[in-house]
């Protein structure tokens, strides 16, 4: 494709044509020497149409540009409209990031753009494009492989950002599908999956149970128009990130022995759960458990050793004996 060959002008699809039109409006307002009258806006971008139609179109276009970070506002008086970029809301203020720091941020944050368990990856991709404004050179030649958010996850993120409730269809772990209205309170990623923490809304508008939902189990997500909500100030998403053996009611407390060289790693995996003590040379982690089977398996995977209760130690031992028996035979 030759960029400046008029004979080779590509056919633009609807999205591209609209984007170029809005880009033109953005370039114009960014370079305007002062406020622009509605008549001039109409003449430059909307052609001969009824003024009410132009006003509607321009308002819609301003909303779209605001979603990109460019806020065009009315600075006129009364019915004498005059339009200009809201510089405080739109443009960078204060001392900006150095080019080197911006590049370092881009390289360090970039892996999260490709991480399917980082629910804000699409927004981060666009944020980094504004932070590091280098779009040339060779440092971007690495392989790609970003997995974009699916439409339903994107709708959940949008609902969270705008604090708009959503009507959803959700399939639970047993495969049962049900409809409910949710207020999204937060997100987290775990074991390669995205989870949303949400409060269920009852018919009277009150909220009941707050629980975790797997983003890939929603089959529909529809925003509820003209409603917003607040997230309780005592809500912390970390309180809802459970370890795999903590799903369901607590049945026992487990005590694990952790090797000193593994402490930092296991603390990271533990997501803040449980208590840590040093007893002699031993590092002990005590944590609530719902499923002894899964706790035993998790302990093997993380190279930590259960000390109590006996039921957990026995389950852990049986699992290992099942694996080791092949070697003895």
């Amino acid at each position, binding site marked *: 494709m030759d*960029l400046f060959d008029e004979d080779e002008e590509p056919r633009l699809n609807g999205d*591209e044509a609209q984007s170029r039109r809005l880009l033109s409006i953005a370039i114009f307002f960014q370079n305007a020497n002062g406020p622009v009258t509605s008549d001039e806006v109409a003449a430059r971008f909307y052609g001969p149409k009824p003024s009410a139609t132009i006003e509607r179109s321009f308002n819609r276009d301003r909303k779209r540009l605001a979603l990109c970070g460019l806020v065009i506002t009315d600075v006129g008086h009364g019915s004498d409209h005059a339009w200009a970029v809201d510089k405080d809301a739109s443009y960078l203020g*204060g001392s900006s990031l150095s080019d080197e720091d911006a590049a370092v941020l881009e390289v360090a944050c970039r892996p999260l753009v*490709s991480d399917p368990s980082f629910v804000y*990856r699409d927004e981060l991709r666009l944020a980094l494009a504004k932070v590091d404004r280098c*779009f040339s050179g060779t440092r971007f030649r690495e392989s790609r492989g970003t997995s974009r958010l699916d439409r339903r996850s994107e709708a959940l993120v949008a*609902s969270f950002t705008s604090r708009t409730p959503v009507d959803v269809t959700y399939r639970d772990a047993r495969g049962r599908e049900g409809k409910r209205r949710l207020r999204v309170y937060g997100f987290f990623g775990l074991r390669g999956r995205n989870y949303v923490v949400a409060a269920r809304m009852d018919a009277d508008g009150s909220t009941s149970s707050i629980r975790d939902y797997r983003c890939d189990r929603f089959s529909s997500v529809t925003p509820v128009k003209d409603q917003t909500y607040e997230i309780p100030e005592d809500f912390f998403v970390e309180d809802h990130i459970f370890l795999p053996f903590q799903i369901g009611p607590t049945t026992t407390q487990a005590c694990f022995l952790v090797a000193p060289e593994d402490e930092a*790693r296991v603390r990271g995996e533990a997501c803040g759960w449980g208590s840590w003590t040093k007893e002699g040379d031993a590092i002990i982690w005590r944590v609530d458990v719902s499923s002894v089977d899964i706790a035993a398996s998790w302990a*093997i995977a993380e190279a930590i*050793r259960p000390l109590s209760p006996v039921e957990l130690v026995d389950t852990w031992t049986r699992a290992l004996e099942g694996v080791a028996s092949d070697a003895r035979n």
Partner: protein
Amino acid sequence: MSHGQGAGNRGRKGGLERLRELLAVLGSLDDANDEVSPTALASRFDISEDQAKRLIYLLTTASDESGSWLPLYLTDEEGVALCSSDSTRGRPCRLTISETMALMSALDQIGVPTSDPARMAVSHSMVTPGVDQEEVERLMAPQGHPSTARDLDVCAKAILDGKVISMSYRGTADAEPRVRRIACHRVRHEEGTWYVDATDMDSGGERTFRLDRMGNVTREDMMARPATPESATHSRTLTVEFDDVRYLDSLAWPGLRVTSRTDGHVTAEIPYYGGDWLPRHIAACGGTARADDEQVMAQVRRIAMDELTRARPATSR
């Protein structure tokens, strides 16, 4: 905090996404000779080079009825650059609310403290006023440790300037940490763990290092050999059979791809980089999972026997 950006205000995703990309690129064209190449655009927006060229085409042809074009010239890289900053140009825009939350959440996850100078510069100049940092932490699950941010910073700088880093590293086969010098090619984040793909300068081999096992990470003056990211990750793919699918949900399996699923039995492929991570996870399935690699399965059995041997005195306490 205002929450005006909602699903109700969103147009079609494709159109709005293109527009957001275009405005980000426009913001980079504010000085003479600022350049945009299709290669960089394709990489940063995860689009094809053809799509990147179409974005550049939209930039070059944007105008109003009287034709106020951006003054651009063609570059050697099939991109464009701004002729002059004295006429029409772009202006960089602030991050939107959702972009701000995404960036703050990413910095939290990496472990960058709010007192970090670069983070403060972003907070002061780029983010949307009114986004509450404490609220982001409360709702977006910060996980990172400051040491992760510090080591990532060193690795990122080494990637950018091509310098070697030295570190002490305890690999899965090492009894004690030992000093290594590596040329970083890229960093990755999978299942909550940060990895560095690099060339080991002493052995010459391509290796993957876990960031949380790296200590005393220091950037040296020595230049690394040219990066070869295409060959940086030397892994082989194993097939693993699962007789109990619960373990697919309860344990982390980075890169696993299910290839068939029948009546509670799952066959999957997973990359294996060496070490005992994968054997240990297979052992954690209690004999209900098998890999198609006899060496790996021998390691699975050895791990189980070693654990049982070591456990006898400990669990009898």
